[in-house]
């Protein structure tokens, strides 16, 4: 795999940009897709947001200062794009953010690209009941197996606060799953 620093340098040079961007899309498409999918839940929406994310990355690569890792910077863009997408969707539908989240989970029952059983369905309901930040931290740590340092970079929250959020989220999810 190409080193991140080399990739950034190649992305910033006009003559190597196209090839480097191809490598970038190939390397990160799956990880970013799953991150987005866990926020927007529906495959078609995730596909739209993933494309928007890569377009934004391409247009803004010159503004990437290298203060954080490229990977964290892309996660930040993907997270913002996903949350903005949900906000616009709730406005278009004329429902609150929370109502939209509940509807998205209900829609999973008829979604051909969701093969979850009863417990996985309940997990989605539990996740929808969490505040955005707690849900993000939980999915990034538990399902995406990211390090706290990387999550901190992507979300702009201290590692200590992330650990607290994660433990709180686990406790709430467990309590929800224990309910009949």
């Amino acid at each position, binding site marked *: 795999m190409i080193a991140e620093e080399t990739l950034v340098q190649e992305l910033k040079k006009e003559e190597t940009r196209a090839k480097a961007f191809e490598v970038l899309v190939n390397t990160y498409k799956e990880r970013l*897709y799953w991150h987005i999918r866990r926020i927007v839940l529906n495959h078609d929406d995730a*596909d739209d947001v993933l494309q928007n994310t890569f377009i934004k990355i*391409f*247009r803004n690569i010159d503004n990437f200062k290298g203060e954080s890792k490229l990977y964290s910077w892309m996660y930040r863009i993907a997270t913002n794009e996903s949350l903005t997408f949900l906000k616009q969707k709730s*406005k278009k539908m004329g429902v609150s953010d929370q109502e939209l989240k509940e509807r998205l989970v209900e829609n999973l029952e008829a979604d051909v*690209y969701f*093969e*979850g059983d009863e417990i996985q369905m309940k997990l989605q309901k539990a996740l929808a009941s969490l505040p955005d930040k707690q849900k993000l931290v939980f999915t990034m740590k538990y399902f995406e197996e990211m390090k706290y340092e990387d999550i901190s970079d992507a979300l702009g929250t201290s590692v200590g606060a992330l650990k607290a959020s994660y433990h709180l989220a*686990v406790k709430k999810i*467990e309590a929800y799953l224990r309910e009949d």
Partner: protein
Amino acid sequence: MKKNKKNSFDIPEGYFESFNDRLMDRIKKEEAENGESLIPKSDGFTVPNSYFDNVEPVVLSKTVKKETKVVPLRPNSNFYYGAAAVAAIFILIFSFNWNSTSETIGFDDLANAEIEAYLDNNTYGMSSYEIASIIPIDDLSFEDVLENALEENNILEYLDENVDDIEDLNLDYSDYE
């Protein structure tokens, strides 16, 4: 063989000193294992067949391959000068006629609904502090930011339920004197 009155068994050195720590570690480990088993390892999402193979061409067609191609200038530029001169004459004639019959379109001609729709559908990346610095606070009232009008009774009910000591609010009672 001489029997030891106390005990004939031996234990590793420091066994009892470290017993508590080892016990607590095991309890924590078991607790963690039980906790994890409650939450499923996978969340059940799937993607269409070969979806990831198609991401790359779609994204590249909207980014790298969409960049404007450089069109070389033709050596014979007289054609362009001629076309530009004709266009300039047309623009002059039209702008002269246009100005005499119609007014310039300004901000006031935009329908409120169009502005609201734009603001609803676009994020403009401004923090509440930035918005506050543009709009003078004196020009705003609570009604401008609330979606539903506040009933006085609801306010009093809220304060009654949520404020322990009404003195904390430092209300000016002059109206009630």
